[in-house]
């Protein structure tokens, strides 16, 4: 049980990553693939957070007397995740914009049918 408690975030992150990968690899619809990418990103973000997380830790701010650094979660992964979310949003927005354009030009979002560039 304690194993689950210690690693629940990792397991969740890993699960999300696998789900994301599965969607990317198996779906043909571009929108679904983009959703997969987004889930994959979320999984990774969760993973990053859990790297720095301490069970029952507090925010890394000396807001009250008596708080010691050992009780705080690591702030660095949170900063990383913040950046990574921003990047993720940018990629997501770009991907959706491209998807719209693609649909206009090709008339489909089925990636198998969008294969004029090959070999």
């Amino acid at each position, binding site marked *: 049980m304690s194993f689950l408690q210690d690693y629940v975030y990792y397991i969740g992150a890993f699960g999300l990553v696998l789900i994301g990968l599965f969607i990317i690899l198996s779906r043909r619809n571009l929108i679904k693939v983009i959703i997969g990418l987004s889930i994959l990103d979320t999984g990774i973000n969760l993973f990053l957070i859990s790297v720095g997380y301490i069970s029952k830790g507090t925010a890394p701010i000396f807001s009250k007397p008596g708080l010691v650094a050992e009780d705080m979660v690591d702030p660095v992964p949170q900063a990383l995740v913040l950046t990574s979310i921003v990047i993720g949003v940018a990629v997501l927005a770009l991907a959706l914009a491209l998807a719209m354009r693609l649909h206009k*030009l090709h008339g489909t979002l089925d990636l198998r049918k969008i294969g004029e560039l090959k070999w």
Partner: protein
Amino acid sequence: MVSPVLLIVIPLGLAFCVPLIGMVSKRFARFVPVVACLFNLVVSVQLLPAVLSKPIVVDLGGFGAPFSINLFVGPVGILFSLLIALAGFVVSLYALAYIDKGPTTRYHTLYLLLLVGATGVVLTGDVFNLFVFFEILCISSYVLVAYRGDKDGVESAVKYLIQGALGSALLLTGIGLLYGLFGTLNMAHIAVQAGSADPIPLFVAMALIVVGLGVEAAIFPLNAWLPDAHSSAPSSISAILSGIAIEVGLYAVVRMVFTVFGASSMLSFLMFLGVLTLLVGELCAFAQSNIKRMLAYSSIGQIGLIIFAIAIATSGSITGGFFQLVSHTLSKALLFLAAGYMIYRSGSMDISSLEGMGKRMPLTAFAFAVGAFSLVGLPPFAGFPSKLLIIRGALADGGALLALLVGLVLLGTVIEGAYFFRVIQTVFFKKGDGETARCEAPAIALVSMFVLVALIIVIGVYPSLIIGVLNSAASELLVRADYIGRVLG
């Protein structure tokens, strides 16, 4: 002395000024990238002597090395930043004439962002910072590939984006793992502890990072996006993608493997991978009838050669690898630029449609020929000393395995020679279908091409001009302790 931070900050600032200037005058905004690249070029050249005598480490944020993000401007970094500034400058000159339709201010903004991302990647000494700059590079290149908004462009941009995002995700996971293992993101700090870490998570982290970066570096089999993206982007962007973007990806891989992980046991695997990449690239290029796709596959082949050379990991061969990198950047940029106007004038990317171009645009065709000769490695062009150095480095070892790999590399070179010379024959010696009117590229584009032609010939005849930088770059990669010592003091 100027601070290396300016190499990133000034172009970044200028990039966001482009839309503002564009509101006033679109014609004027075109010149911003030229100015920014020129600035970077000047600063890099100024920094060069100081860097060669002692690498410069800049701590951002005022804390000491492991705690804050730092820039590490060593010979490798300055070499790359010079190369980026140079290629960026030449291509932005070319783009003054070439990019005449569509949302041009956005093009110039994104173009500068791409260069900033590239410069950041090669100068930073922090793993996560590297990731961020890498994303800047990637995202702006996704957009630029689709710049024309045509069918092929959007299709390849989407494919590039999916693969690139997957690669970035793997990279980020790897970085997270590294942080989990070492509690630091500073490259030197990780490097110090890498030796004593648990090998399995360390390997997983390395595999994630190398594969993630390998997507951008176009290592086989991670390079499927490249032929599509390079062939459907505007030619100026193809030149930068081929000349800069994949080289920067390669830099990141090499930096990780050599400096951060010190994974000397991976090198023989990388050597095989390099030769495999080379052969796959050259064979695919041989079978192409589309000129830009051919050039794109040829880039894969060249990247394979560079990986092979660097993975041999003797100072001679790494010098050769870096030399090849320089000559590839110059030659491939030149090829794409020259091909760009030939395609523009003939209206098709088919090699057969370039018939008679030698007569219709003699100067452009001449520039193309110089690029091709250099890439194939014929004297007296820049590709010759680089191939010479690589093979000399590989054979100096004397092993039978390396001799075999050199044989394969030479085989790849023969194939490369065959398809490039086929194009040269088409351009110069096939009679075109009647159209004979002169239609030379505009003057500014010709200037940019002939800057590259001149560089290729000068470097080919006087390789000693750049060999000093390359030698110190090679020793920076080989001597990890120096790197660590410089950063952590």
